[in-house]
C-alpha cells in the first residue's frame, strides 16, 4: 500500500473485500470526502502513521471490521502506530495490538485501564472471541457491595467480562443477580467497589458508561401510550441515534415486527416484547449488553430464537452479560458462568470446567441423577431449599 503524503492525494481502499470501498486514506480527514461517493460520516479515525489518517465511513462498520482494517494495513506494510487512537462518536478509545496470531492476523484490544483488575481466564476448550488477558476485559467489577439497609444483597463481588464473551450470572432467587446488574447499570448505588466499563469508571461517569451498554431489564415496560415505532425512535434518540421512519421499519423487519409498528407495546406477545426489548437494547451498537433473565416466560421456540439473536450479537463483536435461571440456557449460550448465592460469588468457570471441577463434590453427587449436569453443580453449590 503506497501513499504519497500530499494533501491532495488520497487513495480509496477496500481491505474488507467489499465492492464499495468503505475506507479511504488521506493526509487529512477533510480530503477523504473527495474519494467517497457517500456523504462522509466519520466514525473512526486511526492514526496510521505520523500526519496520516485512515478514515472509515459508513454506519455499518463495527469493532470486528475495525480490527480487520488495522490488521490489513499492518499486513500491507503500512506503518501502523502501536497505539491506535480510535474516535467513535467523539469518544476516544485507545487500541493496542494485543496478539499477533499464527495465521498472520492481528488481534486488537483496548488499551488496558490503569490499575484495572486482572482476573485469570478459564481454560476452556471453546473459543472465546477476542478474549485477551489483561487488555480485553470490557467490564471489570471489583469488590462490589450493594446493601439495602442492613442487608447485603451483593457482598464484595469481583468479575470480569471479556470482549466477545457471553457471560452468565447464575443464582437462585434473591441471590444478588439483579442487584449486581442494577449496580452495573447505575440503577442502584453500590456501597463500595469499582465498576469499569470499556475503560470508563461507571460510578464517576454513569452517563458515559450507560452510552456503552445496552440493557434489557427483567420486566421491560415502555410507555403504554406509545406505539412500537415511536418507542424505537425514542430510545434510539436517547442513545444519540437518529433513525428515519424507513430505518425503523427496516429494523423492525429484521426482528419480524414490521407489521406491528403501529401497535402499542402491550398488544405484543411475550416473545415479540422480548424481541423488541433486545432490538432496542442494541440499537446503538453497545460495547456490552446486559440481559436480565431474557428468556423468562418464553416458549421454547421464542427462547431458541432469542438465543440465536444473542449469538448473532456476539458474532458481531458484542459482549454479553446475562442472568438466567435456566441451566440449559447457560450451557447452550454462555462461554463462562459465575454462580452467585447470598450475595457472594461462589465460582466462575466455563460450563464444561464447572462440571469437571465439581463433579466429584459430595454435595453435587448427592443431587445428581446419572451424569453430572450444570444444574446438579448449581444445586449442589447453592443448596436444594426453595428460595422466595
Amino acid at each position: 500500500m503506497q501513499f504519497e503524503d500530499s494533501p491532495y492525494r488520497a487513495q480509496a481502499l477496500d481491505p474488507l473485500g467489499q465492492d464499495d470501498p468503505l475506507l479511504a486514506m488521506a493526509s487529512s480527514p477533510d480530503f477523504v470526502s473527495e474519494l467517497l461517493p457517500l456523504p462522509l460520516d466519520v466514525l473512526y479515525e486511526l492514526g496510521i502513521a505520523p500526519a496520516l489518517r485512515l478514515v472509515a465511513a459508513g454506519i455499518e462498520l463495527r469493532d470486528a471490521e475495525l480490527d480487520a482494517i488495522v490488521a490489513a494495513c499492518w499486513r500491507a506494510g503500512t506503518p501502523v502506530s502501536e497505539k491506535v487512537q480510535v474516535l467513535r462518536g467523539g469518544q476516544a478509545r485507545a487500541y493496542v495490538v494485543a496478539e499477533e496470531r499464527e495465521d498472520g492476523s492481528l488481534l486488537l484490544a483496548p488499551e488496558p485501564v490503569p490499575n484495572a483488575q486482572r482476573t485469570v481466564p478459564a481454560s476452556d476448550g471453546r473459543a472465546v472471541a477476542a478474549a485477551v488477558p489483561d487488555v480485553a476485559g470490557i467490564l471489570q467489577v471489583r469488590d462490589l457491595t450493594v446493601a439495602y439497609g442492613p442487608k447485603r444483597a451483593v457482598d464484595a463481588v469481583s468479575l470480569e467480562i471479556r470482549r466477545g464473551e457471553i457471560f452468565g450470572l447464575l443464582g437462585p432467587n434473591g441471590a444478588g443477580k439483579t442487584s449486581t446488574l442494577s449496580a452495573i447499570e447505575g440503577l442502584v448505588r453500590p456501597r463500595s467497589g469499582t465498576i469499569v466499563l470499556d475503560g470508563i469508571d461507571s460510578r464517576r461517569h454513569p452517563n458515559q458508561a450507560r452510552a456503552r451498554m445496552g440493557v434489557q431489564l427483567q420486566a421491560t415496560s415502555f410507555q403504554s401510550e406509545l406505539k412500537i415505532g415511536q418507542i424505537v425512535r425514542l430510545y434510539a434518540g436517547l442513545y444519540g441515534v437518529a433513525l428515519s421512519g424507513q430505518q425503523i421499519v427496516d429494523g423492525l423487519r429484521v426482528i419480524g415486527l414490521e407489521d406491528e409498528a403501529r401497535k402499542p407495546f402491550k398488544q405484543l406477545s411475550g416473545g415479540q416484547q422480548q424481541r423488541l426489548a433486545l432490538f432496542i437494547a442494541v440499537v446503538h451498537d453497545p460495547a456490552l449488553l446486559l440481559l436480565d433473565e431474557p428468556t423468562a416466560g418464553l416458549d421454547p421456540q421464542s427462547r431458541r430464537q432469542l438465543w440465536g439473536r444473542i449469538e448473532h450479537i456476539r458474532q458481531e463483536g458484542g459482549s454479553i452479560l446475562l442472568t438466567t435461571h435456566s441451566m440449559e440456557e447457560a450451557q447452550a449460550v454462555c462461554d463462562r458462568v459465575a454462580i452467585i448465592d447470598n450475595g457472594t460469588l461462589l465460582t466462575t468457570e466455563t460450563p464444561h470446567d464447572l462440571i469437571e471441577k465439581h463433579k466429584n463434590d459430595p454435595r453435587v453427587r448427592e443431587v445428581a441423577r446419572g451424569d453430572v449436569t450444570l444444574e446438579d453443580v448449581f444445586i449442589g453449590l447453592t443448596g436444594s431449599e426453595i428460595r422466595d
Partner: protein
Amino acid sequence: MRLVLGSLLRADFLVFLQHRRALIISLMLPVFVLATTSGSKATDKFGGAEFVIGLAIAYGLLSTSLIGYALTVARDREKGVFQRLRVTPAPTWTIMTSRLAMQAVANLIIAIAVVVIGSQIHHISPSAGQYSLVLLVSILSGAVFLSIAQALVGLVRSADSVQAIARVLFAVLILLGLLGQSGALGSFWSSVARWTPVGAVMTLFAGVLNLHAWYSRDTLSLLACLGYIVVFAGIGIRWFQWDAR
C-alpha cells in the same frame, strides 16, 4: 443533549395527545364552576367575576396536576418505565423536565380556555396584557400544584395510594376553596381557605384580571405561591424514588 431532550419531548407530546380526552375532562369542573356562578349574587359571594374565574382556573390546574401528573408518574414508576429510561444515557433531569414541560403546556391550555369561557359567561373583557399575565400566573400556579403532586409521589410510592390520597386532597382543596371562599364555613375557614394553595392561586388570578385593584394580599398570595413551590418541590425532589419497590 438536544437529540435526547428532543426525543423525550416528542414522546411525551405523543402521550399528551393520547391523553387529550383527560384534558377535556379536566376542563369540565372549571366550566361547571363558571356556569353555576354566572348570576351576580353568586359571583359577588366569591368576591367578583375575577375571583370566580381564578377559582375555576385553580380547579383546572389542580385537576391536571394532582390527578393527571401525579397518577401518571406513580403508574409509570410502578410499571418500570422510569427504570428503563434511567438505564439510557439520558440524564434524569431531562426525563422529568420533559414531563413537566408537557404538563406546563396542559396547564396553559386549561388556563386560556377557562379565561376565554369565563370572560364570556361573566361578561368581562381582559386585555392582551392581562391575557399575557394570565399565562405567566398559569405557569406559576401550575408549578404550585405540580410541586404538590411531586411531593405526593415523593412521599408515597404505591400508585394506588397516590390515587387515593390525590382524590382526597383534591376534594378537600375544592371544598375549602368553594365553601371557605364563599364564607359558608365562617370567617376562620374563610381565612384558612384564602391561604391554601387554591386560595392563593385564585387570589393571584383575580389580581391579574383586575389589575387596577392590586392589593397587598395579592402580593402576599404571590409570595405564598412561591413558598408552596419551594417547600413542596423540595420535598418531592428530596424523597422521590425512581423505583416503586
